[in-house]
Every structure is written in C-alpha cells, then in structure tokens.
C-alpha cells in the first residue's frame, strides 16, 4: 500500500489528507495515471508535481511502499 499526502486543491479533490494506492512499487508516471483515473478532477487543474521523501520526483522515479509520497499542486506561497 502506498499512502499519498494531499495538499491544497489536491486535498479537496481527494476529500482527504491522504489517498491510497494498492501497490508495493509504482513509478511516478503510473501513480499519476492511477490518481487521474480515480479522481478526474486532477486533469482539470494546472497540473501537479509528485514529491517522494520530501524531494520533487521525476516521472520515471520508482516509489516503494513506505516512501513518503505527496501530491504537490501549483505552489502559491509568499
């Protein structure tokens, strides 16, 4: 099981601070596909980054169960 922290508009789309994907190992690209399929609204926002263990991840990066994963919608601090 992979747990995914959701912030900002992602938290509203998932309606939770945490989403779950049934997998032990998955690429960032496949996680995006899965999330976009489970929650169509993700395809209607200005994209999002994925962070793995608190670092921005590339699409080919592999996520393992136990990694800290987060969906990072467009940031707007400052």
């Amino acid at each position: 099981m992979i747990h995914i922290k959701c912030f900002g508009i992602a938290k509203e789309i998932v309606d939770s601070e945490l989403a779950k994907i049934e997998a032990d190992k998955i690429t960032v690209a496949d996680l995006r596909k899965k999330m976009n399929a489970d929650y169509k609204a993700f395809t209607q926002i200005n994209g999002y980054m994925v962070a793995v263990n608190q670092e921005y991840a590339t699409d080919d990066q592999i996520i393992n169960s136990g990694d800290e994963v987060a969906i990072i919608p467009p940031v707007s601090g400052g």
Partner: protein
Amino acid sequence: MESLINVYISENPLSIDQVYQGAVNETCGGICLFIGTVRNRNKGKEVTHLDFETYTPMALKEMKKIAEQAIEKFGVKHVSIFHRSGYVGIKDIAVIIAVTSVHRDACFQACQYAIDTLKETVPIWKKEFLEDGSYWVGARP
C-alpha cells in the same frame, strides 16, 4: 548572528525584529529585507483574509535549498526565510526574507532571487478568501 541560514514556518505572527536580529552582522554593511503582506484586493475583488497550508518538513528543506543557492550564487553572508501558516489577515505579514552581505548589490539580488524562487518551489499553498467565496491561488486555469 547565530548561523548563516535561518528557515522558519510559524502559525504565529512573524517578527521583523527577530528576523533582523538573526541577520545583522558586524562584518557586513547591508541587509535587504523583503516583507510580503496581504493585500485587501486581488484581481478587482475584495480579499477578507488568506489561509496558508504548508507541507512543513519539505517546505523547510526547499527554503534551506534556496538560502544555500543564494549564498553560493551571490556570495552573501546570511539568508533568513520566515513564512506564516494558517490564517493571515489583511496587512499582516505572510513572508519575511532577510539577506546580509558585505556590499549592498549582492543582498538586493539574493533577496529578490529568494522570494522569486520561493514562489516557484516551496510547497506552500495560499487560499484566498473573498466576500463571495474562496479559492486555491494558481490551482486552476
């Protein structure tokens, strides 16, 4: 000055004096501070307040990276980045950046670099509350 880099996220009001005391250095002649405050209007609508959500541990890491890059790129001595989380009212301080350098040009450049980069990379999200609703800034087309 206790250290070269200070990064901080707080639910409580930010203190300019605290940031300044951490930034001033007797070997340096200039400090550039940027203070971001909440405007009462945006895109023609009246804003009542903001709410900042933060992915705090990652945000602090990214703020630290910005400070390190600013020191490396511009040769400045010290960078502080303080950001609010939670409810922030009109005219209140959302962010303070302080850069200390031996000569002044570098502190201006590094301070602007830091705020520009913070707005691109640090995982903090601003929800803007208007009289007739609220929205996550920058999230939708």
